[in-house]
């Protein structure tokens, strides 16, 4: 089914269309959940809740060309994930437990290219929740620190510093991996 037809059928509550939508997008959505949640069990719960929400609010979706369905669904997923994180107050946890260097050495793009997706995901999942959330919003949702600060209820500075720390940790991981596997 094409995206448009699929969304139309889902809006009407067609069970087959819903199943197809799930099969088509669940993997990617679960990836997003995992990136935010950090552990698989929570991610699966978030995925479940997200699809409930998606099927529930299909009448609010308007199709605006190819990719709009996926983009809309991803927004729903991210919102569900943020809701969860806020509710459990994980964003402020472990903000600065680690002593991190002021500077870090940027890895090469080719290094990142060499590392399997699964491993990169692992690196992100292992970030402290606060770093991870800011990192996700900044990197994948293209949010500014101002927006992130609003969404998470923190100040901009804190957002920027958490992003910096996230990157520092990731850069370290990438280097270690290249050293061990390259």
């Amino acid at each position, binding site marked *: 089914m094409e995206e448009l037809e699929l969304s139309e059928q889902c809006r009407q509550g067609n069970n087959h269309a819903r199943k197809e939508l799930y099969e088509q997008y669940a*993997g*990617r959505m679960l990836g997003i959940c*995992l*990136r935010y949640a950090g552990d698989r069990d929570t991610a699966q719960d978030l995925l479940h809740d997200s699809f409930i929400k998606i*099927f529930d609010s299909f009448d609010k979706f308007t199709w605006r060309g190819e990719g709009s369905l996926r983009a809309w669904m991803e927004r729903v997923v991210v919102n569900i994930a943020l809701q969860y994180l806020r509710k459990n107050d994980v964003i402020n946890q472990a903000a600065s437990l680690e002593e991190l260097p002021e500077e870090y050495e*940027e890895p090469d793009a080719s290094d990142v290219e060499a590392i399997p*997706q699964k491993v990169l995901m692992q690196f*992100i999942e292992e970030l402290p929740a606060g770093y991870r959330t800011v990192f996700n919003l900044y990197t994948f949702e293209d949010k500014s620190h101002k927006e992130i600060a609003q969404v998470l209820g923190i100040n901009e500075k804190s957002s920027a510093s958490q992003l910096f720390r996230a990157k520092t940790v*990731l850069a370290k991981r990438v280097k270690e991996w290249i050293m061990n596997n390259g």
Partner: protein
Amino acid sequence: MEEKELWMNKLKEKLADYSEPTPASGWEQLEKELMPSVEKKIYPYRKWMMAAAAVILLAVVSSVSLYFLGTPAADEMRHIQTPALATTPDVLPGVQQPDMQGTSVEPVLRPVARENRLAKVDRDIPEHKMPVDEPAVKDEPALVVEEKELGTVINEGEPTEETNAGQTQTQTKDKERPTAGNRPRRPSDRDKYHIPTEKPSSRKGTWSMGLGVGNSGGASSEVGSGAYPYMSRVSMLSVSNGLMEIPNDQTLVFEDGVPYLRQAKQVVDIKHHQPISFGLSVRKALGKGFSLESGLTYTLLSSDAKLADNDRQIEQKLHYIGIPLRANWNFLDKKLVTLYVSGGGMVEKCVYGKLGSEKETVKPLQFSVSGAVGAQLNATKRVGVYVEPGVAYYFDDGSDIQTIRKENPFNFNIQAGIRLTY
């Protein structure tokens, strides 16, 4: 804001389409939760659907005898006191000498009229083509005699009723006039007519209510009134010598001046009440709107009976336990309303019964089939009120105990109640 570094761009690009393998039962779990809005309530009446709760209105109308009573002819007949016989009366009435012990009696002056009363012995087999004006025969005996054929008389006069066996013996000791036409009239299955001398059908077209879940009975009309199978007319043959024997279990009674032998212990007149049922049922949804239903029902069949030797009324109460099995199909399943058709059968066993103070049970099982359409209003997701008009047919159980099932094997019923859904 910092510039996004190359390696970060790479990372984003690489993970943009990242897809995580989904859990195996992910969709199934989701579907389960979506169920209410996806397939709009299949009503898995899981358990004890009716448990405890159901208040029922039982209503009942019609059936064959009632539609019969609705005709003008029936109306007229209802007002006639004496049931009339559609068959030929005796053609040789004049020679008989109605009598009783020891005394001789004057020949009957209006023999045909008297013979008509023999109809009382008839079984209550309704015959619609019975001429309405037949009772008028009483006033025009001669005319009727001429019209009748002897052959018919012979046939109709054949004794068939077991209860009269003893009496037959008595009668046959006198062989002097063994003319068939002279034989006393006895109940025969071939006898054609009875008129239910019931009260004008006040119940016609009305719904009666009752507590219960489950089947109602049919129209309630009276059985046996108008026909007196327990009585046999005193044989004129047997008293022609001026004497007759009366068996111990019988009494001699006079009805309109005609002597009858009456069986003492027999039910004279029986009036059935509406059956009352309660039940529990369990419905198992099979998907696509189909479901199977079974359970347990209790039914009380009660009747007011009159015994032949006693004027006062006693009660006949039969308690049945039944197991129904039905299949249902929801052909409309909306949020507020569910419409369904249902069909099935039931087997019932009389577990206890009483006639007055004596025990009386029905040995054979009572089988029935039924069909219904139902409508359910869903107050909430779990609770709904339903109404279910239907038809049922009760097979003859082969026993000789009179029940409403025999009187109205085919009936319309309506049941209603509260349905709990889990």
